[in-house]
C-alpha cells in the first residue's frame, strides 16, 4: 500500500479528478494549499505596498492505493496535471504502515479496495 500525494495547479484539479476516475481510482481527498516549487514569483502591488508572492495556490490530492494501483494513479495525475511550464507540481509516493476503514474495521488492502454501493 502506498499513499500517493499529488500537488497540482488549481486549474488542473478537475482534469486530475477526471483522469483518476477514468483510471478507476476511487477514494481520495483533496485540499487547497499554498506552495512553492521554483516557479517565477509574481509581483503584486496594493496601493503603495509591493509584494513578491512566493507561494502559489495549489491543490493537494491524497490517494491511498493498493500496490497494483500505484502506477495508474501516478500516471493519471502526471498526465492530467502537466502543462510543461514550471509550477506544474510534484507527485510523492510514500509507504503506508496501516490503513483502517472506520466503518467496518477492515485493514490494509481491504480498507483501500472500494466496495460497490448497493
Amino acid at each position: 500500500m502506498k499513499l500517493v500525494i499529488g500537488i497540482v495547479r488549481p486549474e488542473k484539479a478537475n482534469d486530475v479528478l477526471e483522469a483518476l476516475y477514468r483510471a478507476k481510482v476511487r477514494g481520495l481527498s483533496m485540499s487547497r494549499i499554498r506552495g512553492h516549487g521554483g516557479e517565477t514569483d509574481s509581483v503584486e502591488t496594493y496601493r503603495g505596498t509591493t509584494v513578491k508572492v512566493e507561494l502559489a495556490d495549489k491543490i493537494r490530492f491524497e490517494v491511498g492505493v493498493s500496490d497494483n494501483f500505484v502506477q495508474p494513479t501516478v500516471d493519471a495525475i502526471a498526465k492530467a496535471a502537466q502543462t510543461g511550464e514550471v509550477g506544474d507540481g510534484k507527485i510523492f509516493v510514500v509507504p503506508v504502515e496501516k490503513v483502517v476503514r472506520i466503518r467496518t474495521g477492515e485493514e490494509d488492502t481491504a480498507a483501500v479496495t472500494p466496495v460497490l454501493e448497493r
Partner: protein
Amino acid sequence: MHDFISFPGLLAAVTKDGIDSGATAWMLVATAMVLMMTPALGLFYAGLVRAKNALNTFMMSLGAMAVASITWGAVGYSLAFGKGNGFIGDLHFAFLRNVTNGPQAGLHIPELVFVSFQASFCIITAALISGAVVERMRFGAFLAFVPLWACLVYAPMAHWVWSSDGWLANRHVMDFAGGVPVEMASGFSALAAAVVVGARKDFGRQAVLPHNGVYALLGASLLWFGWFGFNAGSAFTTGGQAPLAFINTLLAPAATLSVWMLIDYLRGRKATAIGAATAIVVGAVGITPAAGFVSPMSAILLGALAALPAYTLIVWRPRTRLDETLDVLAAHGLAGFTGILFIGLFAQASWNLTGNGLLFGNPIQLGRQALAAGAAPVYAFAGTFVLLKLMSLVGRIRVHEADEGQGLDVSQHGEEAYTHGEGAILFRPLEPELEDAEERTPSAV
C-alpha cells in the same frame, strides 16, 4: 379617462431663462443614480465569476466608466445628439463646444445636465458588454474597444431613437429609456463579442460557478435602485411621464421576480437567489423602453412576459457552444426586444399623452416598434462583430491560456481579490536603521 395625469403646473416653476429648478434638481439626482449603476453592474458581474477573476470583472465596468465618459464628452454626445442625418449626428457639439447652460427645445433643464444624464447611459451600455467576455478578454483590448464601440454603435443607435432627426424617431418609434440603444444594443453586441472572442477554455468542460452570490444580489439590487433614475429620469422633468415611469420601474421587475421564482419553483422546487438577481435585471430591462408609455397594470404584464424568453434562453444557452458568459443577450437583448414590441400593443395615450398601441386602436404603432426591434439587433451585432474582428487583426484581444488558467486578476492587474498574505514578501522592506524618510535613497530594484 385618467385625468389625474396632466401637465398644468409643469411650467409653473420655469424661470425666465427657461430652466425649471425642480426638474433640474431631479435630473441631477437621477444622473448620479444612473452613474452608480455601472459600479453596481461591476459588483453584479464580479459575484457571478470565479474568485480569480473578480477584480478584473469589476474593473471592466470601472474601465468603461473611465474611457466611455471621456469619449462621450469628446465626440459621443455630438454623434448621438448633433443634427447630422437620420443615421448619426454631426460634430457640432464635439468637445462640448456649443453646449450651453440653457435648455434645449422642449426641455427645461440645462443642456449640460442633459449631456451628463445621457453620458451615464453610454457608460453602462458599454460596461454591459463586458458580461459576454469576462474571464478571458484582455483588459487593454476592452479599454480600446469601449470608445470605438461608443462612437460606432451606441451613438448612432441613440441618435436613431432620441435625436429629433433620427430615422426611427421620425417614424414615431416609442423608446422611453433605451430599448434600442441600451438594451438591444448591449445584448446583441454581447452576442457578437462572445462569438469573436470565443469561449473560455473551461467552458463546457468543468463547472464554473458564481463565486459570491451575495455580490450578485447586492449588485442587482443597486441596479434596480439606480433604474428609478434611469427610467423616471428619462422624462427629463418631475411631472409628465416621470411618475408613471417611476411606478412602472417598481411594478415590472417585481412581476418578473415573482414569475421567475415561480418558474424556478416549478422546475426545481426551489427559488434560486442567482435567478432572483437575474430576474430583477430582466424586469427592469423589459420596462425600460415602455416605462413612460404603458399603464401600471400593463407594466406588471410586461414584467411577467419578459421573464419567459429570457428564462428560456438562460436555461438553453449553456447547453450550446456559445459562451456568452453572463447572459447579456437574454437579460438585455431579449428583454429589451420584448419591451419594445410590447409598446406597440399596450401603449396608452390616456397614460402617456403620446400615442396608442394596437390594443388601443393604433395598429400601425406595432409595425413601427417591429421596425426598431428588427433594425437594432442587426446593426448592434454587425457593428460589434466587424469592430472586434478588425481589432483582433491588429492585436490580441484575449489573454494567453496560461493567464486564463491563473486568473485575470493576477495576470491583468497584478492583484488578487482575496489575498492571503502568506508567502507574500515585501518587495522593498524599510531599513530599520533609517527612521527618517528623507535619509532613504531610492534603491534599485
